[in-house]
């Protein structure tokens, strides 16, 4: 199978505290996934689940403790950082801190064009920039010479997407791209991702906690919990029929925009994030409604349940271990 990006057993550990009272947290624990060309792959979970750590390592901002990252079959890591800027571009959460408030927005575009020698003349550069801006519903004429504070958050986020498109990337890594954008304008960003995938064949690693937009736009999804991928499959399989107890909890906790379907059950919340990270066995066992004796001592295997990866002891009978390819 064609794989644009392949991440295998990616592990990232952080040490916390002083030399004497050191705690080692595994922020990403043997994370394995791949992204196909022209696919939107979602990495979802609550804050502190390791999704941003995974993105940082893939982008080369942090060095992995272990594991491999293959891009078009070639190994990548912090040493080969250059690849990041070539075929892979990133979009970040807060469009207002992406751009320096004292620089005009178009200077970023010209800088990108120059850095990669994408145009022979100023006229050619403007044509290229204008073409990318039109993809996101803006034009060069209405944005040249303006500063970031002259745009709304939604516009600025679309501008940062256009900026990422200047190098014609094949993969965009988007870390919480809509969480700072108003709900009423969120769909304009998400619809844009759809367009990029369908018309330009761009793949997107969509990192979010917003499962509703992940369902709307995504192809496959991985749910992360405290450093582990606990469930991975197509959005239909995972979100319409979640199997892992944590995926179920996450899915049920999204407030539905339907007053006839209010919550009827109650949830219990985690006391301390750190405790869950250091837990032996399944890290969700402390809050899991279906926890068994084995969950508190043994880490569950990645099982194959009807083609979906599920990391849970509940499915241990009659299911084989998931094949990562």
């Amino acid at each position: 199978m064609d794989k644009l990006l392949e991440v295998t057993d990616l592990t990232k550990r952080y040490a916390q505290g002083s030399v004497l009272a050191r705690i080692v947290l595994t922020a990403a624990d043997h994370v394995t996934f791949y992204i196909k060309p022209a696919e939107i792959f979602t990495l979802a979970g609550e804050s502190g689940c390791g999704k941003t750590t995974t993105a940082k390592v893939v982008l080369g901002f942090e060095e992995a403790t272990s594991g491999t990252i293959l891009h078009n079959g070639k190994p990548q890591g912090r040493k080969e950082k250059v690849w990041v800027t070539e075929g892979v571009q990133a979009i970040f959460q807060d469009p207002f801190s992406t751009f320096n408030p004292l620089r005009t927005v178009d200077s970023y575009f010209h800088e990108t064009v120059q850095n990669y020698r994408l145009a022979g003349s100023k006229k050619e550069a403007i044509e290229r920039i204008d073409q990318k801006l039109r993809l996101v519903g803006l034009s060069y004429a209405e944005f040249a010479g303006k500063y970031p504070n002259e745009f709304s958050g939604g516009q600025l986020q679309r501008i940062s997407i256009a900026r990422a498109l200047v190098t014609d990337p094949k993969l965009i890594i988007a870390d919480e791209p809509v969480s700072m954008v108003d709900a009423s304008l969120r769909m304009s960003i998400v619809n844009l991702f759809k367009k990029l995938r369908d018309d330009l064949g761009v793949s997107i690693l969509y990192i979010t906690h917003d499962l509703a937009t992940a369902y709307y736009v995504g192809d496959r999804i991985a749910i992360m919990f405290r450093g582990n991928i606990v469930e991975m499959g197509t959005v239909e399989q995972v979100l319409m029929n979640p199997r892992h107890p944590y995926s179920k909890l996450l899915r049920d906790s999204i407030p539905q925009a339907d007053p006839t379907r209010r919550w009827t059950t109650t949830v219990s919340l985690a006391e301390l994030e750190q405790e869950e990270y250091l837990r032996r066995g399944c890290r969700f066992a402390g809050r899991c409604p279906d926890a068994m004796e084995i969950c508190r001592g043994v880490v569950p295997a990645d099982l194959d349940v009807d083609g979906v990866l599920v990391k849970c002891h509940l499915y241990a009978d009659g299911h084989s271990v998931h094949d990562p390819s």
Partner: protein
Amino acid sequence: MDAATPAKKKAIIRTDKLQAYYILDMQGTQKIVKAVNDVSLTIYENEIYGIAGESGCGKTTLLKALFNDFVPPMRLTGGSIFYLLDGDREVDVTGLSPDEMRQLRMEYISYIPQGSMSVFNPVLKLKETYEDFVGSHRKGQSREETFELARHQIEVLGLPANVLELYPHQLSGGMRQRVTIALASLLRPRVMIGDEPTTALDVVVQRGVIQMLTTIQKDMQNTIILVTHDMGVHANIADRIGIMYAGKIVEEGPTTQIFSEPLHPYTQFLINSLPKFGDKNVRGSVPGSPPSLADLPSGCPFHPRCPHVKDICRQQMPDFSHPDENHKVACWLIGEGNHG
């Protein structure tokens, strides 16, 4: 049905043509930001009232005005705010002295802010902050009595009992927000105002916080006014919703009606743009971007973005028409000639 019989209910907080403007002096020229522009609201006892709208529509300013907290450059430029004191005495609080207002805060009305990190003093244990907040309201009460009250309430709300002995940074975001809500409800206020209290939280934690808000409301039978741009949250807990656009309430009605038959084109956009599970049909967002409150368009402020715009929309702001008793909407498309 709570929302269906407002006529029998008492208005706990009411505004009449409320105007709260920011008046900024920029190099000699005056700039006026009309953040709350002629808002007349009636909010009843024992209900959860949701206020929805985009960022920059004046939601937070409206809440500050309801809390009667005017800090320059924000000014009360017109209208009045009434609180229902002692169960039957309606008082215009814009005329109260700062001292009288301070007594009402926490006891009659309390405020739950969005960023709970800034509520607590980072170098004091939480119980010291409790002491600070409660001390001025319960003059004769000893520290031990205050802590006893706080501890009892913390237990009732299902929070860990040792939480009062901790410093703010030792709590997770969700726990801190729940302690903030516990503090806001400690003196059993008749009205609690929440400004995006769940926005910075994860979905599971958000659900826990909302759960706690509804428990408190059921127990105390008081009023919660909740501002959030997340329509899913409104659908889950609000009894009635007011939709705010460019400093005005443009539609108001019971939650079920707002979701099943939104009338204002803006409300329709808000509701229809929400993605739903099991439905992959293409959804659009509201076209254009919200207007600047310092430079409002003429007539109805939504007209530059409205797909059904008519000539009159550009000239005149419509008054409310009442499709039925509990539902009101300010749009020229609804209720011909009924705009007075």
